[in-house]
């Protein structure tokens, strides 16, 4: 197993991790729906009024779409895209069984 990949990935901040999780969950969901409906990326782009570059960014897991863009995708595909994305992220995230020491310290002060 690649130690360097594990080590590098572990250094990502929690904020960045969450952002990347959301982005990749969106990529996965859009890819799944396009497959299920046999819709091409070009057709999806045209119907959702997105550029090819925007669709590519979404599918490669690097897009930061606005709420307006997400609403267009949700309306076009008739799916609760945000709910799905969030449930995917929640399912994949491992929550610590006990609060981290910093959190415990903060709680003891309040």
């Amino acid at each position, binding site marked *: 197993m*690649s*130690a360097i*990949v594990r080590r*590098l*990935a572990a250094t990502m901040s929690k904020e960045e991790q969450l952002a990347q999780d959301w982005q*990749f969950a969106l990529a996965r969901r859009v890819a799944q729906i*396009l497959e299920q409906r046999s819709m091409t990326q070009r057709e999806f782009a045209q119907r959702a009024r997105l550029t090819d570059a925007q669709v590519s960014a979404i599918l*490669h897991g690097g*897009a930061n779409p606005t709420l307006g863009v997400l609403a267009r995708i949700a309306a076009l595909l008739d799916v609760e895209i945000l709910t799905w994305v969030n449930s995917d992220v929640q399912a*994949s995230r491992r929550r610590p069984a006990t609060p981290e020491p910093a959190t415990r310290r903060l709680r003891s002060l309040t």
Partner: protein
Amino acid sequence: MYRVRLWLAGRCALYAVERDGVCLADDFFALLSEKHEGDAVRLARFVEMYVNEEVLREVHLRPELPHEGVYAMYNHRQLLRENYNPSRLLCSYLHGYNSILVVGGGFIKQRTEPIQSNQEAMMLARELSSIMSVVNQRLAFGQLRVENRRLVATSVEALIIHHTGEINP
């Protein structure tokens, strides 16, 4: 001499190419983390997430030399003022399977160049393509087989590829 070995395993599996005992993918991550640490971190985490997918979808990859079956995992990141993503980790599907990829070397893309004008990147892509033709041939002839989304070799030699007569990158 080349060797193919398990590199990362999740629901799917990624195999890496070693050239004379050096893992090309690990070597690339070491270089990338020196030059673009943030991109290395982001790509590493992408790779970890990707290997845990149900299937390794092609739409999440970048086609580098698709007619030779070579794609790249890369760090796609939209920035406000620029869209420069330097990391490219070359990979190729095991023929007939969407759950196993073999990763080769990687390269750091300059801002404006396509892969075709990057000699080192082209060499790495052709090297991977050549290795994959041997691996796929061995799969077809039964020296390698896939069980539970993992590559199984029928002999120690089945995952070793010698220079002579087999690889012409």
